[in-house]
């Protein structure tokens, strides 16, 4: 005991000393006004990344940082909307064989990893095609705890087998090979038209084996990449990135980035054409999850960019549709309304005989009537109004508005609430307040989630569903919630899906039978016709025909009333007018950091203009 007592005392002593040291230390460096003329961009994030290892870049914050610290073969064009792929580390778009199975990709010369002690002599070496091969293999190595394997599972020849054989990096994967230092070849099992999109994900970023092996688990906080920035500092309150001076020289071409002078002239990007990014010397990324704190930091000029909190929309917006900035703020800031590349929806657990499939066909059809009545009773206008300030986009179906295949005609802009219809459905199927099942609505405990549940309960009350039969099923952590619904224990699961790439295949697979829990089909929806169409369309490159298949699949899901869907939120992004930039939280994500630049003549403009 005495030793332990000593240890803990020592611990406290150390902590005290550290406290003194910290205050003293920060005193000495206090408010150092960075006397030089270095260009700093301060981008506030509303959450923190879990890890800086690209293999674990599963949330939006991790992705944003990963694509700045590391290189991906492809990225999305800075300014083009709808979103378009463009080469990043790759020299050009992949050369694809006629049968769509073999992809050959050349990488740009001159890409270098940053200097790091894990390299011989501490000097960063050139990025080679084999680094990419290694980086993808990592996802199939259980030791990595990677989260991106699903992108390439059962797609690449020999890769799944490589994992089964024990994930030995010295063993070659036939479908994933470096032909030489700069040439890469991927061989697919069957055509996968979305492959190039997967190579623009943070997950596919190129990491050097030396660093992974050198740092072990702590590679997650010691990134060693070849991206436009390198990490200076990282902790739970923020990250600081410094310009990677050796980043490949590739001038910005506004035209190639999809510049639209008509709508984008006000951004002040013209002067940047032909200049070589990254333009800023340093990027500070404080993680400020609390709405009020983030807003205050922005208004006080401590950060240049924020995702505006909904609670401040009253003050920020002069109009809602389209969202415009209030007079007061437009003097100092710019606004972009960014429709999220995903949607929020509430799935019925079709595996639950009380609400979903039932062996008795009669009961099954009564259950379907019940589900459809619930879908009809859901008031998307109210949901949008109360929680998204009325600027979200409610739509009917599973193809969100950001997907190129979205059909505005089919999905009425806001799904109409139909109380009378819902009541009729219930009546005809013989449901009454006594025999309706108890609805268990799952959510991870938080104020907003609970309010959404209570709103759902009041929607149900409107069609005569007894409030005591609509019950919350709460979970203390998101992980526990996920465990429950992935184990099919939650009757009504509300989740948000963020699309990985702009192709509705990415949302269709949410209802594909083979993806049932623990896959991402959390409705456990199985419809043979839907599955047949999914398999048929999976190997098809984008085409009007494929789009029409997607739309029939969309109809099938909606007719089965397997989900209450959905709404895409509109994010309000605000930034300092003195910067020339167009931020994005969707597919471009963090790729735009390198193009952020000080506005030319903006400050003088500000004085004159009175818009």
């Amino acid at each position: 005991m005495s030793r332990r007592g000593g240890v803990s005392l020592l611990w406290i002593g150390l902590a005290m000393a550290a406290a003194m040291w910290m205050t003293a230390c920060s005193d000495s460096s206090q408010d150092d006004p960075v006397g030089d003329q270095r260009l700093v961009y301060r981008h506030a994030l509303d959450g923190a990344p879990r890890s800086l290892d690209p293999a674990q870049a599963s949330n939006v914050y991790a992705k944003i940082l990963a694509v700045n610290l590391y290189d991906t073969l492809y990225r999305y064009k800075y300014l083009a909307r709808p979103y378009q792929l463009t080469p990043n580390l790759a020299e050009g778009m992949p050369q694809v064989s006629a049968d769509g199975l073999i992809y050959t990709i050349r990488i740009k010369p001159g890409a270098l990893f940053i200097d790091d002690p894990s390299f011989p002599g501490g000097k960063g070496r050139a990025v080679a095609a084999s680094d990419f091969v290694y980086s993808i293999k990592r996802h199939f190595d259980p030791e990595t705890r990677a989260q991106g394997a699903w992108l390439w599972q059962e797609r690449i020849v020999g890769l799944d087998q490589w994992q089964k054989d024990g994930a030995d990096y010295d063993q070659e994967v036939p479908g994933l090979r470096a032909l030489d230092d700069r040439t890469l070849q991927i061989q697919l099992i069957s055509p996968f038209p979305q492959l190039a999109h997967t190579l623009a994900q943070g997950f596919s970023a190129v990491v050097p084996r030396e660093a992974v092996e050198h740092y072990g688990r702590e590679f997650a906080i010691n990134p060693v990449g070849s991206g436009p920035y390198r990490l200076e500092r990282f902790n739970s309150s923020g990250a600081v990135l410094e310009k990677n001076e050796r980043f490949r020289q590739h001038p910005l071409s506004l035209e190639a980035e999809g510049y639209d002078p008509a709508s984008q002239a006000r951004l002040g990007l013209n002067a940047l054409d032909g200049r070589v990014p990254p333009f800023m010397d340093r990027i500070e990324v404080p993680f400020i999850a609390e709405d009020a704190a983030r807003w205050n930091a922005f208004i006080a000029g401590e950060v240049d960019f924020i995702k505006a909190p909904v609670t401040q929309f009253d003050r920020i917006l002069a109009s809602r549709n389209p969202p415009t900035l209030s007079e007061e703020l437009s003097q100092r800031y710019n606004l972009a309304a960014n429709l999220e590349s995903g949607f929020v929806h509430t799935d019925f657990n079709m595996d639950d005989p009380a609400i979903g499939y039932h062996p008795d066909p009669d009961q099954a059809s009564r259950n379907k009537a019940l589900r459809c009545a619930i879908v009809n009773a859901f008031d998307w206008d109210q949901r949008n109004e109360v929680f998204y300030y009325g600027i979200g986009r409610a739509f009917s179906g599973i193809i969100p508005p950001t997907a190129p295949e979205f059909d505005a005609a089919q999905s009425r802009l806001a799904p109409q609430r139909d109380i009378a219809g819902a009541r009729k459905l219930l009546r005809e199927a013989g449901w009454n307040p006594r025999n309706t099942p108890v609805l268990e609505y799952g959510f991870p405990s938080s104020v907003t989630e609970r309010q959404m549940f209570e709103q759902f309960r009041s929607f149900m009350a409107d069609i005569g569903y007894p409030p005591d039969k609509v019950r919350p099923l709460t979970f203390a952590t998101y992980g526990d919630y996920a465990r429950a619904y992935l184990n099919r224990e939650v009757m009504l699961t509300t989740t948000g899906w963020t699309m990985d790439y702009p192709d509705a295949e990415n949302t269709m697979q949410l209802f594909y039978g083979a993806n049932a829990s623990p896959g991402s089909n959390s409705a456990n929806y199985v419809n043979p016709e839907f599955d047949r169409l999914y398999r048929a369309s999976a190997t098809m490159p984008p085409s009007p025909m494929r789009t029409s298949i997607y739309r029939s699949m969309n109809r099938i899901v909606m007719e089965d009333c397997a989900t209450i869907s959905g709404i895409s939120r509109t994010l309000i992004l605000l930034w300092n007018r003195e910067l020339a930039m167009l931020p994005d939280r969707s597919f471009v994500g963090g790729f735009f950091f390198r193009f952020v630049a000080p506005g030319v003549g903006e400050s003088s403009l500000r004085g004159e203009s009175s818009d």
Partner: protein
Amino acid sequence: MGTRRTWAHLKGDRAGLVGLLIVLFFLGVAATVWLGWLGQGWSEASGGRWLTPNADHWFGTNLLGQDIFARSVYSVRTAFEIGLVVALVSTALGAGIGALAGWYADSWIDGSVMWLKGVLDAIPFYLFVAAIAYALQGQWWAMHLAMIATFWTTTARLVRAEAMKLRSHDYVRAAQAMGLTDMRIIWRHVLPNTVHILLVQATIAFVAAIKTEVILSFLGIGVQDGVSWGLMLAESTQEVLAGHFANFIAASAMLFLLVLGFNLLSDAMQDALDPRGGGA
């Protein structure tokens, strides 16, 4: 220290009387909720968002347009349910364990009780309560259990000391000599003599329970189904910065009044029941 004297003492304590009146008032409110007269519409979204107080909504409405008056009144019932369950069970548990430990002082029973108490005291309260709440995923009684598991220790300590004193009293020895079993003696002679401790401890536990509920509900591990002042305050943390204070004022004012009432009552009882001379 007869009941009458205690009552006489209590009557002379103005603060205590005020406390008693407050508690009785809230008990009455809770009763009207139990009887289904008040607060029944707490979950209906019956009005517009964030309405200011008016004739239909005395305390205004919240984000969803629910009536804040109904919610805060219904929460009185929630508070009493939590407070009563936790106070009764934790006091009873503390009394039982404390009496056993005191009666068998210095035996292994006493040793393990003291050990358990030491262990529970050494774990930071909110961490412990959170841990129980997590371990018992989603059970509505997880919060109750967590509080009971920590609140019994004080009662047990006090009862233990009292039981050790009583053990050497003549009439207890006499009872032993008559061949009564230990359990019977504890039940008949020891526990009744700790009532003054139990009453005070129960009011203290009641107060602690409803205060803890607020914190736990804020942290997302408190009340799961229904409404409570804690849930209302948690909601208000997202609203006050935007200038909506109705939730906050309604919940915190009622919470404060009830806790104050119990605190005053508990103080008065402590003075009145103190065997060492009925307060000074």
